[in-house]
């Protein structure tokens, strides 16, 4: 059943232009000039700000000297997904935000792009920088093939573990492959990056769902320890009337289509409403506009200052001509014959702060209005994969459904370790990598000296 009205198809070159890399690769000369701007700080703030603590001045120095292999080694030994992170990290609130150049009144060093430049060199030339460790006879299973699992697996493989990754998707990479705006990174980039982990001898079993294709007991029996890096699941429902109408999508599901389908085949309404104002919502509204949607509305029940999207992301949406409806809350999705025709909204005002200090949005009766749209996208965060997590006996979940872990990333079930979005509730790729590496250390320690 088609949408009521879809955005007109664009010319192929227009799709290419709209989804062209927002931060293109640097040329040799650009990289040399940018690298030479770096002051080579001691105990550098950028390195401190990076969750994986990449030695930024060291890798940039190595770019300056033409030692690209050494530069990439510097990056990837701290963060095996350094390539993705170079593209998708919110660098303005991490390394580049901490760059001393701000205090100097100059633009920060383009650390993300330089990082990508160095890693591109080893990826493009198929240079293997790391070797698997001498086999230690121990086997580890990683569930999920997103950033946390990949980082954990790479560390363990370097130390001699035999690691198998089980993932339900066709392609590895998790959200890196399926969930990041196409103009930041393409699925193919993420899949290519996974080769770095494959080179270490990590085995991938894609299209395998634990509990359906392989039962947990088998994993427990055959592997010394199991790492859970399953991330989060589907987008939360709005619990609104009309939510099941044809034309209502989850944000993650919509983004995924822009990553795995040819862009001209991605279904998008002529007019779109997106509910939520986080970074994922920005990915949705910018993608919708770039796919040709005429009007794209972003609806948020609080105001501009309260939005959780980063300033840089917000700027992107503004540049793409998105209409923002602050202090607005959806009431019901309207439809005819089971197909979305509009979204009824109501204005809100900010109430008193709750116990967390967050001010609730209070609807203002009588301010209801209708947006004529053919597509409604929910971008209100993802649900935990509760059903699966509950199937692991004794795992232990927090109130919000995330996995409970100790400082070594060990769960309530001693044999299971966890990291990434399924434990932190949804953070950046670089956080998942840092946590995945920390979990690998915890897991390694436990397997060497098992307690309880």
């Amino acid at each position, binding site marked *: 059943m088609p949408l009521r009205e879809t955005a007109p198809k664009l010319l192929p070159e227009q799709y290419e232009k709209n989804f062209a890399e927002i931060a293109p690769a640097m040329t040799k000369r650009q990289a040399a000039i940018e690298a030479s701007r770096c*002051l080579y700080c001691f*105990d550098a703030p950028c390195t401190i700000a990076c969750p994986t603590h990449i030695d930024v001045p060291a890798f940039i120095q190595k770019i300056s000297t033409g030692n690209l292999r050494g530069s990439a080694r510097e990056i990837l030994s701290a963060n095996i997904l350094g390539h993705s992170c170079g593209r998708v990290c919110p660098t303005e609130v991490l390394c580049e935000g901490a760059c001393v150049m701000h*205090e100097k009144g100059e633009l920060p060093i383009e650390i993300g792009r330089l990082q990508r430049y160095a890693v591109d060199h080893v990826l493009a030339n198929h240079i293997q920088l790391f070797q698997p460790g001498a086999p230690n006879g121990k086997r580890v299973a990683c569930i999920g093939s997103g950033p946390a699992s990949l980082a954990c697996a790479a560390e363990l493989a370097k130390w001699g573990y035999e690691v198998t990754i089980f993932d339900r998707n066709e392609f590895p990479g998790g959200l890196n492959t399926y969930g990041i705006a196409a103009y930041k990174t393409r699925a193919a980039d993420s899949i290519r990056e996974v080769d770095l982990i494959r080179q270490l001898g990590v085995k991938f079993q894609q299209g395998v769902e634990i509990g359906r294709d392989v039962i947990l007991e088998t994993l427990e029996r055959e592997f010394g320890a199991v790492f859970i890096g399953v991330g989060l699941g589907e987008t939360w429902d709005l619990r609104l009337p009309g939510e099941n109408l044809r034309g209502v999508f989850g944000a993650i599901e919509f983004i995924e289509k822009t990553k795995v389908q040819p862009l001209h085949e991605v279904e998008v309404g002529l007019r779109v409403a997106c509910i939520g104002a986080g970074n994922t919502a920005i990915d949705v509204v910018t993608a919708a506009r770039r796919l040709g949607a005429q009007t794209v509305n972003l609806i948020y029940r609080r105001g501009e200052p309260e939005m959780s999207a980063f300033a840089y992301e917000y700027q992107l949406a503004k540049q793409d001509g998105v209409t923002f409806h602050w202090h607005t809350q959806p009431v019901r999705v309207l439809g005819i014959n089971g197909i979305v025709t509009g979204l009824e909204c109501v204005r809100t005002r900010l109430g008193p702060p709750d116990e967390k200090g967050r001010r609730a949005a209070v609807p203002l009766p009588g301010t209801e209005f209708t947006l004529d749209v053919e597509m409604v996208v929910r971008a209100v965060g993802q649900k935990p994969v509760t059903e699966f997590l509950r199937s692991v006996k004794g795992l232990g979940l927090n109130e919000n459904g995330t996995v409970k872990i100790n400082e070594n990333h060990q769960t309530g079930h001693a044999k299971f370790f966890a990291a990434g979005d399924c434990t932190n509730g949804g953070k950046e790729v670089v956080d998942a990598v840092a946590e995945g590496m920390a979990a690998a250390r915890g897991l390694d320690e436990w397997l060497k000296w098992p307690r309880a």
Partner: protein
Amino acid sequence: MADLSVKFAGVTSPNPFWLASGPPTNTGGQVARAFDAGWGGAVWKTIGEPIVNTSSRYAAIDLANVKMMGLNNIELISDRPTETNFREIYDVKKRYPKNLVIASLMVESKRESWHEIVRRAQDAGSDLLELNFGCPHGMSERGMGAAVGQVPEYTEMITSWVKEAAKIPVIVKLTPNVATVAPIALAAERGGADAVSLINTINSLMGVDLETFAPRPNVGGKSTHGGYCGPAVKPIALHLLSSVAKSVRIPISGIGGIGYWNDAAEHIALGASTVQVCTAAMHYGFRIVDDMIEGLSQYMDDHGFKTIEDFRGRALPNVRDWGDLDLNYKVIAQINAGLCIGCQLCYVACEDGAHQCIEPYKSAEKRNANGFGVHVPRIIEEECVGCNLCALVCPVENCITMKEIDAGGPAMSWNNRSRGQSDACAPPVPSGD
């Protein structure tokens, strides 16, 4: 408005800026354009028995974004017929009577050869002659250039030959490729030179291509040592200039690393009457002289100097032997925390490379616009030896300054300490090289 004209060895130059002998003064067309741009004089590309040059000829070292910090060449003297050069000198002089054309000369070390070339250069209308006793490559293998300028006796002898024939002032161009330059300058003076110029280029090998192992500049996989010049050589030039300026009475034309008016002013402050520029013109063209003239003139106005003579050599008495320096003069570094950007380059430089007088930041009291801590280090004042290194590496202007402190006691130099007296009434000690 300052008067930039200079009286040099009896002739007047509209300003102290001359093009040095080299590729920019190879032809009459170039020299004419240079005079149009504002250059006061031009030392013609050395004229002698025409030679054959190699391809390639130049090589440079870059420093990060700065191209051609140092340049080297293995080009020889003019490859054009002497007749052509002299005819063009004649034409240029006719068109630009007020600008100085200085004929740079180099011939085999025979009295008659020198007499002949001197006469021809004079007949062409040159204002001055410059004897190229400095070229360090190629020509020196044939007993010319630096082969002459490295030996005081040859320098004196050939200068005196030239003076026998010369009716116009003679400059002797000195090579820096000697253990000490003052004796050569004095030899030129004894030979009758009306002026000296320095420095010629410094012997150098520019580098090696690490793939082919061909040295640079590459001539079919081989290379040879060549003359080094450009911004990188200025400190060497200034040192040699000051030692010559303290030794001779004749005027000096300063050469070496001059790209801006302030470089020129430094040469003048150390005793040069005129300055010569080559690499900067090779890099950016003749137009650079516009800022040189304007900048120098502005500087002189700001300091109340009406003529070049008003500040020429003013820094010279301050160039002293180490033993004359006041050991009781004391400075210590100070970090302006407000300006500090937290790179901690001063800390690591002092800790690893100097005297361990800086502590790294302990807690970030300052935050940047994005809320990240700024790592301001701290000088351990009682340990600071005042070496300047932290201030030199600091990327922020005026963030680290060296503050003079009272070390107690009167001025005391090593020489005076050895003699057991303070500096209070000591006369200045002149110093040569």
